[in-house]
């Protein structure tokens, strides 16, 4: 396709992207350079980079950054591996139950996040089912402590997000040519060898894309943590989004909250660079 024609066809989506992404980003950059509260929102005061300096010297920001990284490092690989394994298992089921099982697995992902988190949290609260079992087994109450709350957040994120990679990988597996697997089987390849040399390379682009989306999602996670912690600093489970919300909505430092948002965007980009590089290389190779 000629370049000129390409730009014509892609113009509507490009315009939409610019309107919905670049303009808000520009406003965020503008606000991040100003002292703005809800009171002086119409007359922001320029303060240069002092919002950024304040954030980068705030120990609470770094604590939130660390917890964001912990979520990223623990949750994303588990979501990918678990989603992949479950997709493989689901692919083996050929009966009518496949649809039923898929629907059941999708439930956590379909439920509104806040509602899902509340239901999950209630299992561990006073009178909750898991809390009841815990007491029955260990003869002591289940307690919300910094460790238990952080672990519960990560477990919840895995439980709630894993259906997404599962569906993507399952859809990818439906496109895998049977002939390749049959040929490998004839050549004596084991199931493991088929998986490593045929299935995973075939799903590689999907693995990359899903990883990128999950990294972005986990980095920006808000609702689950908000519901699980109710902003109680005792649990030390604030991530960057929660930090940004607190600074913006509670302390009412809108400029500083926007500076946090800009730093978060930059942070996501840094984390995504290796993935983007691999995707770019793959694309070049294919061309």
């Amino acid at each position: 396709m000629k370049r000129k024609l390409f730009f014509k066809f892609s113009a509507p989506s490009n315009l939409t992207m610019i309107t919905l992404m670049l303009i808000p980003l520009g406003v965020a950059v503008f606000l991040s350079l100003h002292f703005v509260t809800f009171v002086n929102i119409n007359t922001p005061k320029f303060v240069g980079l002092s919002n950024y300096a304040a954030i980068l010297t705030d120990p609470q920001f770094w604590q939130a950054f660390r917890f964001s990284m912990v979520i990223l490092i623990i949750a994303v690989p588990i979501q990918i591996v678990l989603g992949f394994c479950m997709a493989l298992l689901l692919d083996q089921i050929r009966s009518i139950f496949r649809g039923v099982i898929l629907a059941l697995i999708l439930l956590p992902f379909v439920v509104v996040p806040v509602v899902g988190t509340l239901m999950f949290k209630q299992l561990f609260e006073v009178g909750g089912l898991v809390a009841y079992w815990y007491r029955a087994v260990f003869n002591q109450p289940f307690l919300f402590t910094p460790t238990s709350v952080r672990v519960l957040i990560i477990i919840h994120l895995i439980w709630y997000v894993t259906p997404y990679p599962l569906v993507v990988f399952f859809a990818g597996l439906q496109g895998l040519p049977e002939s390749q697997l049959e040929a490998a089987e004839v050549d004596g390849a084991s199931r493991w060898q088929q998986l490593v040399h045929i299935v995973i390379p075939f799903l590689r682009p999907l693995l990359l894309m899903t990883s990128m989306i999950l990294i972005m999602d986990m980095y920006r996670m808000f609702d689950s943590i908000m519901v699980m912690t109710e902003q109680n600093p005792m649990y030390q489970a604030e991530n960057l989004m929660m930090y940004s919300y607190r600074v913006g909505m509670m302390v009412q430092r809108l400029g500083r909250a926007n500076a946090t948002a800009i730093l978060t965007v930059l942070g996501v980009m840094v984390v995504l660079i290796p993935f983007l590089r691999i995707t770019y290389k793959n694309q070049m190779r294919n061309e």
Partner: protein
Amino acid sequence: MKSLRTTPQVSEWGFPGWLMPINDLVEKYWDEYDLGDIPQTAWDAVTINGEILGVPVVGNSFLMIYRADLFEKHGIKVPETYEEVIAAAKKLKAGESSIDVPFTINLHAAWAWEMEFFQMLGAFDGKFLNDDYTPAFNGPEGVKALEMMVKVAKEAMGPEGLSYSIDDTEIGLQTGRLAFANTWASRAVKMNDPEYSDFVDELKFAPAPAGYPGGKVAASAWNDFYCIPKNIDGDRELIFQVMMEALDLESQTKAVEYGIPTRMKSMESDMVGAYMPAAMEGIARGAGAYPLTPATPLVRTALQEYLPTIMNGTMSAQEVLDKAAASYTAEAKANGYL
């Protein structure tokens, strides 16, 4: 358009000028709608610099709900101070196997810590701010209040009680898992309702405990208001009249079954809950609301940010409060209040 606002929002939205003053309408319709039936303290809670910014609709306060049968069984008299609460809780913890948690105040979330601190601070004669908006909450009264909260949390509640939300407290009392609690008066409404409570006759009510014998109770008193946004285009007088219709004596009399309405005549109803005398005594003994200052929201935010961290055991009460004071001071200066 009308909206219901609680006392903290009167500061947050009133001082920036986002709420419409209605002095003229209140004056004009004072007799027609019998607005004198609403206590002056409720009007004061929505008046900033002489401008009335809303109409008080409903109130709420704190009180103590306790299992009279368990108190009697263990020879415990109804606690009047927090030291007595701790002693009673210890006795129940040691001798009563039917309960999981002896006592709770609400400490499950950051905002809950701040609210309980506000109440305890009042019970030790402290205050949030000095007249010049410098922090007062980190003085000796604040330290005593926070130390008492920690003592209550550790000795009367235990780690399980620390995670009790307001809902957990209500259900805990109704199901017998919890022996007594200092909680919202509105949560007392269903204590004697057999549809919700297994201990209809056993659950009784008393004023919130005090910080020291004869002192103020560790409670607060709140009103919610109908307010009109300042930027409204509609007919403000008509909106005011609609608000007044919703606030008539008939509606308020029916509401006593569910809470504390603001019209005093509604209290003459037979439906007034058994908890009401205890709630009213608490209000009479010093329960109040947040100070109406533009800096109050910043104090609350700073306290929410730091108070719960005392349970991590790395800072003393004084250090926690000093950190909150430093955080508040920085924001108050940035906002031009200091």
